[in-house]
Every structure is written in structure tokens, then in C-alpha cells.
């Protein structure tokens, strides 16, 4: 630059010799003298403004570098602490902070361990605690037109500032002071940013221009590096400041607008996590979503439809934000359309995880709740289409949870769309699971948790039957609801108490129970009927089980009845396989608390299996427990009666029952039951035959389209691997071993159902274990 002012010349001329002295002289007094001369040019010195400016521009960095090189000199070491702070530290704290920061960081990364490094680090700490970073940010805000900083320098400062903890930690490793650790550093940085914004507001009020470009870039870069959580600690503060002050709102919007596109997503994501409530987001972000395509994509698509890990609160914030402003409402409608499309897509229902479906359902209901009446009328057709399609494809699902979700969401939508008289109504009694779906805005605080109230029942006036035959009679022919109900309630207890009478009528009793209908909507009907049937199957196993297994494949039963048969067989087998406890408590209340749909039952079995796997895992830390008394397994000798008849006719379709066709619900349950029967037969002599037959059966249906069936298949495979003796298993698998492993690995990796995946992993582990024991034991090599 051409203009030479007198100050510039004098400053440069005065500083140059001093610097020479500092760098070369061995006389401490002389060095100190020289430094004291230079001090005049620093902040707070008595040189004129133009002299200082010239010094800062031309000499400052050089001075600092010379100081750094003097770290090892005698002069430095001979300085008393007080003077050292003034003559050395002061230079770093009283000049342009960007230059000082660069020099400090360069020094730290290039100096080897020693007192010099320690000193520099402590100066960096005082640099941070003296608020120099805030100064730096502010100085950048003021550069609206002047100093055409080189892009490179700007980038360098940005990088250093945003990754300072990494830079220092690379050098200092475990000796990094707390202030330089990410948690502390970024929290401080957030405070500095906030102060800078405050200064900006003040300056704007005074009519001065400011540029938020640098701060915005810094924010973006920090968020991009994954420190969004720490840096957005400024979010709550920002939210409260913007509440009362329009200027703050403008500044905050401007800041976000200035964040470069490549970083804006991480900033927005961090923000929506840390701002509570739609109005806060609206104040802080303004209409950014309309101006920035990237933000629009994140808020209207990515967060809602591609991700599903966010809490409901976040969904509420984002959707509420879209709904708050008139200009943004078209976006809400657009979001609703796309959410509808996803919700009613039958392929999505089949191929996305339950969690994601639940997330989308929440988004859908929240969206609909935010619409006003005219908008609903406008979108009515589309919503109706979505509702009908979505509900239908969910009702087709074999997973209980998905069906329920369809019903609950369907009901809620219908409430919004239809007149009170023509609303869709499923008698969804299990709404409790989905309360969070239905509950739109209210928060339930300080509620006391209720105790189990299942024992609260209507007092009976009639007396229950006292004889098995009376009970049977009542169930067969009585039209008195109370009598039937009482008979059903006492049936299990009666049967178990009067074993010999029960044996006489066991098959007949089973037949009556199997055909019994819930005519009087008795509470806990299914459980009561089921436990009575289980009792019969346990008391008189062979004939009852023969009867049930034959009926399973015969004509004219409903799917429900066939499912019941399977459940009864499974529970009976389970009871038989357990040792007889002294007093078999009639476990009615507990049984009733378990939901009566088979979904709950499956969970129950799985828990049992899980427990057994647990109990088979040896844990060193556990002390030896009391060994249980040995008793013969009652299930082992009769396992075949349970198992083989169920495999007899599966491929013979009938008029009313097509197991391999449309009735995959029963197929899934059948495979599950077989798996359980297999698992319970562990150590039974017949286990090998059972395992062979089961593997043959499931091999054919392992790629079934229905996830329930696939889950059943994997469960069965698990059971075979667990229960079949190792050597027989490998003999049986020998040809298909490689293929089996490939199949399991494939399922473990890519099945859309989480349960299938985990079961596949479990099977693989079991298989590997079997293989290893087999290969290690030398006796098997012959």
C-alpha cells in the first residue's frame, strides 16, 4: 500500500532494532529494556492509534515469534514470575487475538515437552480465560468492508478455533488441562458466540454495521465436527433473549442464514434437539426453512421420514414450527402428504422396522392435530385414502403390534375426518400401549402409579360347581351366564384336584372347551379356557394330545381355534417339562395379566428360552446355587405325541384351511410351537428324530414372505441347535452346513425384522459353538 504515514515509519523503525536486541542480546537488562519499548505499541500502551495499527499489521506476529524463540534463553529463565507475566504473557494477551492464537497453537504443536511448552500452554489458558476468543469473534464481526483478509488466513483461523481441543490434545495427550478439553472449550465458545451476538445487537442499535459471516461459519464448522451438543448450549439462552426482543430475533435468523450450506444441516439438527417447543424454534430460526432448500429438506423430509431415532418432543417441535407461521403452513400440508404416502405404503409396512413405523405414525397424528378445520376439509380426500390404505395393509399384517397400530391411528384419523356418527371404530381395548400416540399435547405429571387391580371383580352370588361332571354339564348346556362363567373359572382348579375323574372325561372335556364360545363376554375368557385345556392335557396327556393334534388338521375349525390348539399344546408341554413343584399355585391373576393375544404368548416363550440360555451360561462370579432335586422329566416320554402329528398334514390344503397359502398366521404359530416343543425335548432320546424332522420342515419355508413365519423358522432353528445332540446335528446338517450358515448370515444382516436378525445371530453363535466342540473333540474324528 502506497500511503506512508509518519506513524508507520516511526513504529517500524523503532521496533526493528528492539527486536534485534531481543533475539540476539545476551544481556538481560538490555532485552527487558527493548521489550518495554515495544509494549507501548500494544493495547493500553501510549503510542498513537495509527502507530499501533501499523505495528499490529507489520510487526506483531514477528514479535511473538521472537518471544517464542526466546523461551529457552537465559533471559527468559532469569525473569522473575511477575515480570515474566508482564513482558512475555502480556504480549500475547494485548495484541490482535487472531495472530496471537495462531502463534500460540503453532508453538504448542512444534515445541517438544519441557518448561517452554508448559508455559505456552498456560499462556493459552489465560488467553482463553481472558476472553480473547470473544475479542477475536467481535473483531471479525466489525470487518464489514475493510481489510480484505486473505481467504486462506480466515480459513486457518476458522480451522484452529473450531478444532482447538483436538490440536492441543494431539500434542499434550493426557496432560491436557480441563479448559482445553472439548466439553469446557466448546461451552466457553458458546458463551463467546452469545456475547458476540449481544455486542452485535448493541452495535446495530447504535447504527453500526456488523457481519455475522465468521461467527456463522464457526458455528457451522463446530457443529459439523460433532460438537453441536456443546455449542448449542447457547440455544436456551437464545430462546429466552429472542422472546422479548425483535432485534435479537433478526440477529439470530441472520446468523443461521449465514451458515454455509454444507454445514447448515448439522447446525439445524443440533438446534432442534436443544430448543424446546415450536415457538422457541420459530423465534430463533424465523422463516429459514423457506429460504434455504437444505434446511427445508432436513426439516420436512429427513428428520421425519428418513430418520426415526428422535424423541417425540422433537417431532412436536419441528411440526409445530411449520404450523406456527402462515407462510410455513403450505409446508405442513406438503409434509402431511408425504407422511401419508409413507404411512399407507404397504411395502413400507412390510419392510421397515416397527420403531420406524411407530415414528411415522406419531408424525402423522401430530401433523393432523396441527391442521385446522378448513385445511382438513381441503386434504380430506387424501387423508381418507391414506387412512383406508394404511389401515388395511396393517390389518393384513401378522404382527399384533402392527395391527394395533393400524387400528389406533385409524381411529384417531377418523375422529378428525368424519362426522361423529360415521367414525371408524375398532374396539381397541389395549389403547394404553399407544396413549403416547393419542395424547397430543398434555403432559401428565406427578401421577401416582397404580397397583395391579386385576383382582377387582364383581362379587358373585351363585356358587361355583363342586364336581368335575357338574362343571362339564354347565359348560355344555347351561344358558345361565353366571353359571357358565363360574364353571369356567373353577374348571382348572377342579380338574387338577380331581385327577381320576378328570381322566375319565378328559377328551370329552377338551372337546367341549375347544368348541366353547365366549357367549357372555366373560372376563379373561381365553385365559380361563386355555388354562383348563392345559390342565387336561397335563393330567391325561396321551389321549388329549392325540385328540388336539388330530383336530388341528381337520375340517371346519376357525383360525382362532387352531391357534388355541397350538397354544395349549405348547403350554402343556412346558408344564410337563418342568419339575413338579410342591404346591402348584393356581396362577390365575398372573395369567390374566398377560394379554390374551398370541403375540404376548410368543414373548413369554421367548423369555423362557432366554432364561434357559442364561441358566446354561456359566458365570464364574456366581456362587454355587442349591442344586434342585432331581425328578424324571414327564415330557420326554410323550414328546413324540405332541410333535410328530403336527408335522403330518401341513402340505395338504383343505377347503377351509390352507397352511402354506393364505393362512400364514397359523403357519407362523405352528413353527413357533414346533420350535418350542423341540426346545423342551432337550436331552430326550427322541430329540434327534425331532430335530431332523423339524429341520426338514422349516428348510422349505425359510424364505417365506411373512415375518412371523420367518421368525418362527429361526426360532425353530435355534431350538434345534440348542436341543439336538451336537454330533447328530452336524451329521444331519453335513451337506447343507455351508448353505445354512450362508442363509443365517444373510438373514442376520439384511432381514427387515429386528427379531429375525437377532434370532439369526443367536443361531449362528450356537452353530459355531457346536461346530467348535465337534472339531475339538478327538473322539468324533472317526
Amino acid at each position: 500500500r502506497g500511503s506512508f504515514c509518519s506513524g508507520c515509519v516511526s513504529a517500524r523503525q523503532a521496533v526493528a532494532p528492539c527486536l534485534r536486541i531481543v533475539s540476539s542480546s545476551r544481556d538481560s537488562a538490555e532485552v527487558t529494556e527493548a521489550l518495554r519499548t515495544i509494549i507501548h505499541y500494544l493495547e493500553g500502551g501510549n503510542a498513537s492509534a495509527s502507530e499501533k495499527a501499523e505495528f499490529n499489521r507489520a510487526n506483531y506476529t514477528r514479535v511473538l515469534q521472537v518471544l517464542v524463540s526466546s523461551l529457552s534463553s537465559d533471559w527468559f529463565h532469569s525473569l522473575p514470575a511477575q515480570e515474566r507475566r508482564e513482558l512475555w504473557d502480556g504480549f500475547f494477551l494485548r495484541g490482535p487475538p487472531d495472530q496471537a492464537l495462531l502463534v500460540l497453537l503453532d508453538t504448542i504443536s512444534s515445541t517438544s515437552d519441557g518448561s517452554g511448552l508448559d508455559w505456552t500452554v498456560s499462556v493459552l489458558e489465560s488467553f482463553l480465560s481472558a476472553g480473547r476468543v470473544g475479542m477475536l469473534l467481535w473483531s471479525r464481526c466489525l470487518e464489514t468492508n475493510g481489510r480484505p483478509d486473505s481467504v486462506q488466513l480466515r480459513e486457518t483461523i476458522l480451522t484452529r478455533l473450531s478444532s482447538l481441543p483436538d490440536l492441543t490434545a494431539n500434542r499434550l495427550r493426557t496432560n491436557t488441562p480441563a479448559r482445553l478439553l472439548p466439553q469446557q472449550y466448546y461451552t466457553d465458545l458458546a458463551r463467546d458466540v452469545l456475547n458476540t451476538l449481544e455486542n452485535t445487537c448493541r452495535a446495530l442499535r447504535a447504527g453500526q454495521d456488523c457481519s455475522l459471516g465468521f461467527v456463522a461459519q464457526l458455528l457451522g464448522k463446530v457443529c459439523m465436527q460433532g460438537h453441536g451438543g456443546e455449542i448449542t448450549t447457547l440455544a436456551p439462552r437464545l430462546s429466552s433473549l429472542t422472546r422479548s426482543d425483535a432485534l435479537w430475533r433478526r440477529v439470530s435468523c441472520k446468523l443461521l442464514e449465514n451458515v454455509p450450506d454444507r454445514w447448515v444441516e448439522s447446525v439445524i439438527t443440533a438446534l432442534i434437539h436443544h430448543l424446546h417447543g415450536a415457538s422457541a424454534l420459530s423465534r430463533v430460526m424465523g422463516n429459514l426453512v423457506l429460504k434455504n432448500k437444505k434446511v427445508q429438506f432436513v426439516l420436512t423430509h429427513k428428520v421425519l421420514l428418513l430418520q426415526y431415532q428422535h424423541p417425540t418432543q422433537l417431532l412436536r417441535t419441528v411440526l409445530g414450527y411449520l404450523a406456527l407461521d402462515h407462510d410455513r403452513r403450505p409446508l405442513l400440508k406438503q409434509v402431511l402428504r408425504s407422511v401419508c404416502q409413507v404411512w399407507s405404503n404397504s411395502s413400507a409396512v412390510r419392510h421397515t422396522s416397527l420403531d420406524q413405523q411407530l415414528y411415522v405414525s406419531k408424525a402423522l397424528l401430530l401433523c393432523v392435530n396441527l391442521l385446522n378445520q378448513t385445511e382438513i376439509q381441503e386434504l380430506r380426500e387424501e387423508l381418507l385414502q391414506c387412512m383406508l390404505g394404511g389401515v388395511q395393509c396393517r390389518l393384513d399384517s401378522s404382527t399384533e403390534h402392527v395391527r394395533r397400530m393400524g387400528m389406533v391411528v385409524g381411529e384417531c384419523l377418523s375422529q378428525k375426518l368424519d362426522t361423529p356418527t360415521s367414525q371408524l371404530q375398532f374396539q381397541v381395548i389395549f389403547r394404553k400401549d399407544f396413549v403416547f400416540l393419542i395424547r397430543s399435547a398434555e403432559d401428565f405429571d406427578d401421577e401416582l402409579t397404580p397397583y395391579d387391580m386385576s383382582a377387582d371383580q364383581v362379587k358373585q352370588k351363585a356358587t361355583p360347581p363342586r364336581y368335575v361332571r357338574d362343571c362339564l354339564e354347565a359348560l355344555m348346556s347351561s344358558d345361565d351366564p353366571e353359571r357358565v362363567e363360574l364353571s369356567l373359572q373353577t374348571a382348572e382348579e377342579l380338574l387338577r384336584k380331581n385327577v381320576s375323574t378328570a381322566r375319565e372325561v378328559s377328551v370329552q372335556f377338551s372337546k367341549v372347551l375347544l368348541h366353547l364360545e365366549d357367549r357372555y363376554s366373560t372376563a379373561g375368557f381365553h385365559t380361563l379356557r386355555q388354562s383348563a385345556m392345559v390342565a387336561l392335557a397335563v393330567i391325561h396327556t396321551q389321549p388329549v394330545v392325540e385328540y388336539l393334534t388330530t383336530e388341528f388338521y381337520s375340517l371346519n375349525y376357525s383360525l382362532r381355534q387352531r391357534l388355541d390348539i397350538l397354544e395349549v399344546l405348547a403350554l402343556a408341554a412346558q408344564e410337563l417339562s418342568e419339575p413338579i413343584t410342591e404346591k402348584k399355585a393356581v396362577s390365575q391373576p398372573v395369567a390374566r395379566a398377560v394379554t390374551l393375544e398370541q403375540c404376548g404368548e410368543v414373548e413369554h416363550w421367548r423369555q423362557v428360552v432366554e432364561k434357559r440360555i442364561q441358566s446354561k451360561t456359566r458365570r464364574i462370579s456366581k456362587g454355587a446355587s442349591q442344586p434342585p432335586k432331581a425328578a424324571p422329566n414327564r415330557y420326554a416320554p410323550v414328546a413324540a405325541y405332541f410333535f410328530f402329528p403336527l408335522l403330518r398334514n401341513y402340505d395338504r390344503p383343505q377347503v377351509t384351511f390352507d397352511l402354506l397359502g393364505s393362512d400364514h398366521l397359523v403357519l407362523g404359530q405352528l413353527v413357533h410351537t414346533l420350535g418350542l416343543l423341540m426346545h423342551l425335548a432337550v436331552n430326550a432320546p427322541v430329540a434327534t428324530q425331532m430335530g431332523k424332522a423339524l429341520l426338514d420342515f422349516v428348510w422349505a419355508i425359510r424364505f417365506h414372505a411373512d415375518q412371523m413365519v420367518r421368525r418362527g423358522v429361526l426360532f425353530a432353528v435355534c431350538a434345534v441347535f440348542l436341543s439336538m445332540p451336537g454330533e447328530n446335528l452336524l451329521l444331519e446338517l453335513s451337506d447343507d452346513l455351508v448353505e445354512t450358515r450362508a442363509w443365517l448370515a444373510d438373514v442376520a444382516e439384511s432381514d427387515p425384522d429386528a427379531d429375525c436378525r437377532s434370532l439369526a445371530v443367536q443361531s449362528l453363535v450356537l452353530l459355531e459353538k457346536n461346530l467348535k466342540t465337534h472339531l475339538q473333540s478327538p473322539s468324533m474324528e472317526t
Partner: protein
Amino acid sequence: MVMARPPPDPLFTLRGSAAPVNTLQFHCSTAGRPLLYSGSEKGCVHVWNLNNRRAERVLEGHDGASVIWVSTVDSTDAFLSQGRDMRVCVWDLHEGRSAVTHSLRTGSVGFCQCSLLEAETNKTLLALPAEHTEEIKVMELASQTPVRSLIPDSKQGMLMCMKMFQAESGPLLCAGYEDGSVVLWDVSHGRPLSCLKAHPEPVMCLDFDTDRQKGISGSSDKTLTSWIIDSQQNLQMQNSVLLTNPGVSQLCIRADGKIVAAAGWDGNVRVFGWKRLKPLAVLQHHKDLVHSVAFSNHPEASQRLMAAGSKDQRISVWSIYSES
């Protein structure tokens, strides 16, 4: 699915009243041992020591007539018992005495319990059912001077239950009648302020929470109804909850306003959240009708017990929702 906790068992049971237990009252507020008073059908009042769980004393003052209400009077340290011999006995229990100082004749043949209000220091009011089956008499306890007589204009049938409480404007009284209506009375002026048809069947019991200006009433049918007194001093229906079995003998709101307990004719004590009448617990213990429930007024929240007295001659004592 998280399974709900099983309901708690009673902490202990007090046997030995040798007759159905009609009414209960805790007395734990002052220093000294915590006590529970119970009135029985055979005319006795048992004073239970809750530390050793035994009856310390048995008071007999009603000639074998059923005791339907007991109460301590904090201001004078007296004790009141109401019997079906149409008398309210005033007892002096100081220093081991157990003497009836005097008795007040009610003339009532019904089952309506008295209600005591100790709002102002030297003026303790007692509301009694009177000879006339619809009438309530309010008297000053110390001087035994009658203050008011409250008789409804319209036909509301027999007086069933009542609760007197202090409001800013003066003492008020909620009374439940045979035709299922609840009437709010202004005691100082002796006029009804509001009437609410709360039940189709007779109102069997009620309790009122002065902090929330909200009360609850039970009947011989299956509903519990809560109502509020609005700013115009009108009764307004608020909430109701359906019971499994009909009939409630007594309702009691805990002093902290968190829960309310109902003594059921089916032998169960039901606990509800007071805010929304959310069912919280069904306590099954008694073999026969539960006649009475009461909450302890112990200064320490964790020691605040609940007692239930039943026709099966037992008193069960529970600790429920007393953790926080």
C-alpha cells in the same frame, strides 16, 4: 409390558373389638403415642395404641347401643362419641380418666354421623342430625348453645351424611340426602346456597377438600361423584368414576390432597388419585362390608397410615402412597 405391582398387604390388623367396627379416628398429631379410636356396634369405643398395637382402653358410654361416630376435639382435648342411643357423649380422657362429662341428646334415629368444625379458637361447632329426619342442628360445643337449624325446603328425604368446613365467608356445610342430592348450606345464615343431584340413589357418604374446594360423594350404586364449589358458591359436578361393585360406606380424602379412599360394601377399600379420580388400588382384605376408612394425621408424612374398619370385626392398617 411392565406389569403393575401387586397391591400391598396391610401393615397389621387390629383384632379384638369383638363387634363390627363402625367408625375410626386417628389421633397422632401431638406428641405422645399415636392412637386410633374405633367405635363398635356393641357400643364400645376402643382406644388402640399404634405402637404396641393393642387396645389401651375400652370406653363404654352408650349402653350397648351402636357407636356410629367418634372424634377428638383438639382445642379442649375432649373426646366425642355418637351412639344410636340418640346421644353424643363428651368424654374427659385426661390422665387416665375415662368419664363422660356430659351428653347431648340428638333425637336422631338415623345413621347420619355428626360433623365437628374447629376453625376458630374458642368457637367449636358441632353439627348433629336431629329428631326430625331432614333436620341438621348446629350448636356451639363449649356452651351447648344451638346456633342454627338447617331444614331443606323441598322434599329431599332423610339426612344421610354431612361435612362442615370453614370458608372465607364463614362456616359452610355439605349434606347428602336420601334422594341423592348434595346441598351446600351457609351455616351462619342458615340457608341453602346450592343443591346438586349427584346420585340417583341415597348419598351414603361424602368428604370435602377445603384447599381445592372440591368434594366427593358415594352412594349405594356404583358411582363415585366429585363436585366443586365455584366462585358463586354453586355446586358443580366435576368427575365420576364407576366401581366394580355397588355401595360405599365412607369416603376419606387424605390431608395432602393426593388420594381418596373409599370403603366398599364388597369388603374392598379402593384408592383413587384425588386429582382425576384415577383408580390406583383395590385393597382386598376384609371378609365383609368395610364401614369406615380414615387417614392418620401424623406430622411425619411417611408415618401417615390408613385404617379400614369392617363388619368382620377387624381393623386393617395400611401404608399406601406414603413414600414421598
